[in-house]
């Protein structure tokens, strides 16, 4: 191998073949094209207009901005093209019990004091009877979201306006199309077609080439499976086993329908718990995306359809579309010379908007661990590392999602009764106990989610911490009261000065067609 890298130039490039367009396919294509040299790596993407993509209105996490910046996308242009809005967090309605509402923000709660995390001071304030304010009141992004306000975060770390970040809601189909033009302008070859046969190396089992319906053969060195739930290469051809997580995440169907946009443009995703699952609401500039994620064990499709249609803000735009899925993941996302990215590698329901994050993380790891050009084959050591990282990402998100289900007080509804009593992964049991006994938060360095996210959901789902860190007792109560009040005032003063989300978007990045039609009206 050492010799192979002596001269990387002048011979045939390493051929990366991506099967499937959609968000996963085009993010992979664009990420590879941007980060790896053209003369060393060729990228071909096969997609078929006949096969629909899952992409509905998509909510994202703040990490997406790192990906877009890496590509060098212009933020306003990207938002206009994908009819995007800003997102400060997710609002959870009726999750703990009907009538409850909390926001999981992309931002901090309060600030540490004397080296002690905020939640301990907050709990002490509540316990000692001086402070009745909810945890939510101590998050800048929660208060901004409630006010439908938006501004870019401030970079001055001393400012309270630096304590949050933001993501987007966008039309995933338009995002894929946007990345497609970006990638094709930079040399990614797109083939319209469907794979009908896969030939493999007789001894190694590696994929040699794909035969398309047209009869065309596409040979490659590395195949990226972005074929979605079908997992055409990794699952069907390489035969990597499926690890099922339905016993922890019982939802297995979704009905999706867009509706007319009415009212103020909210800077957050909404997730409303329903008897057999939950309904998402994703505000885009031109319409609102909706969907009911449910468990087929607890409700039939017709009933789910009725529930969804009777809970829309505005008129439905078309018939709800049904998606079937199983929660879980392939035991190895990379096997031989085939690596799956996106739904082909696993599925976690979009409760915390993690689908695109998982794609992004996989693309980032893949370009770093990509086989060298002109190397003899895939290096098993790099494959092991990729799979280790991928598994860690999935498992950490999984535990966080399960928390939303298991910590509920929706007594008498079969899905929620089941979720309260189901056996949990040991890793989650341990996290729950730690929070209950002393408000301690999981603190890992890699993967999702950060401490403040766990805090938002623990508290939001009604988990009561019976104790808090003793170090908090070292501070005078009067000083604590003063700090807490001052912090809330600082939030309020700053939020009051913010622009409304709708006005901000109209000024910064109005969607292309909308801008034109408004101009026509004027």
């Amino acid at each position, binding site marked *: 191998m050492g010799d192979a*890298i002596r001269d990387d130039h002048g011979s045939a490039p390493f051929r990366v073949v991506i099967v499937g367009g959609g968000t996963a396919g085009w993010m992979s294509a664009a990420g590879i094209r941007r980060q790896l040299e053209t003369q060393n790596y060729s990228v071909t993407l096969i997609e078929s207009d006949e096969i629909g993509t899952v992409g509905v209105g998509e909510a994202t996490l703040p990490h997406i901005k790192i990906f877009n910046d890496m590509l060098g996308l212009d933020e306003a242009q990207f938002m206009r093209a994908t009819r995007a809005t800003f997102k400060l967090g997710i609002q959870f309605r009726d999750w703990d019990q009907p009538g409850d509402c909390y926001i999981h923000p992309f931002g901090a709660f309060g600030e540490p004091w004397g080296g002690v995390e905020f939640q301990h001071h907050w709990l002490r304030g509540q316990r000692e009877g001086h402070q009745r304010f909810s945890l939510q009141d101590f998050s800048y992004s929660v208060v901004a979201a409630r006010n439908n306000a938006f501004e870019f975060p401030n970079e001055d770390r001393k400012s309270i306006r630096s304590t949050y970040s933001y993501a987007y809601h966008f039309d995933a189909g338009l995002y894929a199309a946007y990345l497609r033009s970006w990638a094709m302008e930079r040399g990614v070859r797109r083939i319209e077609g469907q794979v009908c046969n896969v030939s493999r190396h007789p001894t190694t089992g590696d994929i040699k080439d794909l035969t398309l319906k047209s009869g065309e053969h596409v040979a490659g060195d590395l195949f990226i499976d972005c074929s979605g739930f079908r997992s055409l290469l990794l699952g069907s051809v390489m035969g990597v086993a499926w690890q099922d997580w339905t016993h922890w995440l019982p939802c297995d169907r979704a009905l999706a329908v867009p509706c007319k946009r009415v009212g103020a443009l909210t800077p957050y995703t909404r997730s409303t718990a329903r008897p057999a699952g939950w309904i998402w609401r994703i505000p885009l500039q031109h319409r609102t995306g909706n969907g009911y994620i449910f468990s087929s064990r607890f409700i039939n499709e017709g009933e789910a359809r009725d529930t969804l249609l009777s809970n829309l803000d505005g008129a439905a735009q078309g018939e709800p579309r049904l998606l079937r899925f199983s929660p879980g993941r392939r035991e190895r996302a990379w096997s031989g010379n085939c690596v799956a990215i996106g739904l082909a590698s696993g599925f976690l329901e979009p409760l915390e908007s993690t689908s695109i994050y998982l794609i992004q993380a996989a693309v980032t790891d893949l370009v770093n661990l*990509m086989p060298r050009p002109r190397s003899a084959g895939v290096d098993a050591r790099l494959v092991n590392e990729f799979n280790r990282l991928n598994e860690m990402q999935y498992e950490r998100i999984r535990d966080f999602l399960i928390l939303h289900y298991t910590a509920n007080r929706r007594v008498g509804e079969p899905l929620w009764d089941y979720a309260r009593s189901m056996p949990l992964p040991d890793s989650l049991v341990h996290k729950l106990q730690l929070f209950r006994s002393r408000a301690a938060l999981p603190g890992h360095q890699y993967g999702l989610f950060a401490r403040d996210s766990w805090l938002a959901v623990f508290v939001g789902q009604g988990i009561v911490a019976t104790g808090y860190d003793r170090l908090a007792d070292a501070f005078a109560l009067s000083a604590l009261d003063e700090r807490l009040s001052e912090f809330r005032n600082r939030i309020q003063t700053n939020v009051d000065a913010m622009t409304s989300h709708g006005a901000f978007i109209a000024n910064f990045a109005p969607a292309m067609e909308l801008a034109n039609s408004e101009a026509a009206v004027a």
Partner: protein
Amino acid sequence: MSTRQLLSRVVVMGRDVDLWLCVNAISRALGPAGVNVTAIELPTRLRPFEVSATLPPLEALHSKLGIKEPTLIRATAGSFSFGQNFVAGFGLGRPLNFFHAWGAYGAGIDGSAFFPCWLKATRYGLKVSFQDFCLTAVAAKNGRMLLPDEATAAFGRTDYGYHVRTMAYAGYLKSIAANLGVKIYQAQKGLVERDETGSIAALIIDGSLRIEGQLFVDATGPDAILIGRSLDVPSDDWRQYFSVDRVLAARAPAFTKTPPFAEIRITGVGWTALHPNQAGTGVRHAYSSEFLSDEAALESASAAADAKLADVSFRTVTTSVRSRVWEGNCVAVGGSACVFDPIHDVDLHALQLGLVHLLSLFPVTGQFAVERAEYNRIMRSHYERIRDFQCAFYAVAPFGGQFWQQARGRSVPQTLAHKIATFRACGQIAPMEDETFSPDSWQAIFVGLGVVPESWPPTIDRIPPHRFNEEFHRTIEFIKGKVLEQPTHDGYLDSIGRSSAA
């Protein structure tokens, strides 16, 4: 004791630095929250001129304890240490010299980390070694300090540890504890009195005095008098990973100019560490009793140190980790929890990790099963990452001689095997939770010991070669300029006031 009452009485039994750092940390942080600490001090095991080397994070604990650096340096005849200089002479297969610094190596180029850029450039003929891109390493090797400013902060970490006279350091910490109002008892030995649940109810010291408590901390070092001898918590042996089982400690005269680093001299039968400070030079020789007698070790150490050694003592090292470091109402910290190989001076750092996590998981009430489970989990994880780092050194060290051959032939933990494989393949350090040593440290050790990755992440191939040259040149010039601005180590020690303890 009612289990719902706030836990407020802590008894720490131990000796030397383990005892006093523990007592101070708990008392300082939790005293204001109503926690009362009692110290039971056993006779010292320290030799008068023993030297301890510390890792950079200790400074943060010191600042929480209100310890000022100049005071500390004066009180302990201390000096600064920017890392470890490893030297192997001829006759060991190959001569070798590399510096394992506590500071950052190189500066990233166009959004990529420095290391892969250096790796690729080296493959294409760059002759500048990895350590020459480390600001603190270059400063230290030139006998200089590295005082951070805005420019160095933009470059990267410029951390350092200390070489302190252990006995003076323990004494200094004890005086702070006394000032904090900690009740201190001296004892020759302590007996454990258990209650009906098996928890420790009290310690009976010297057969007469009974000290009650709710939480007991074992800071008795490898003797593990509470957690091991009394509670019978076994240790998991790590000797299958390590060849060192014996350490000679001694004192050599001070260097004419005090080096601001430790030097590890590799010999065919082990290694000899020199820890200079203001009072002299601490010498440690680590070896395997299978290949070397104590007499031969003394000869070997004197030759390696090139000095006449005084205050010579020997001890046995049994690398191992307590299978549960918190059992019942007894928490083991420092040497009673885990015994490490001596090569990277991690003992005080491991003690600090134990204390930091004990504070963040300090029981609210007498019901602390959850805290105990988490403490056992997280400490095990931290200890194992340190073990892996140390184990890596022996697994890849290329030296000749029976000791090194045996060390190389030993098994390695699976986590480390994966890390070595990933590094060999592409030069990346597989990220894991709870690491003590940074990727810079891992890379410095691997590269220093001659492990050459076969490849690098292909993402850096898009950076044009001239950018490497420009940035390498800029960095070297920056380092050269910054180092010349720095005071010498001795000059700096003079400026903060020499130690009376020297």
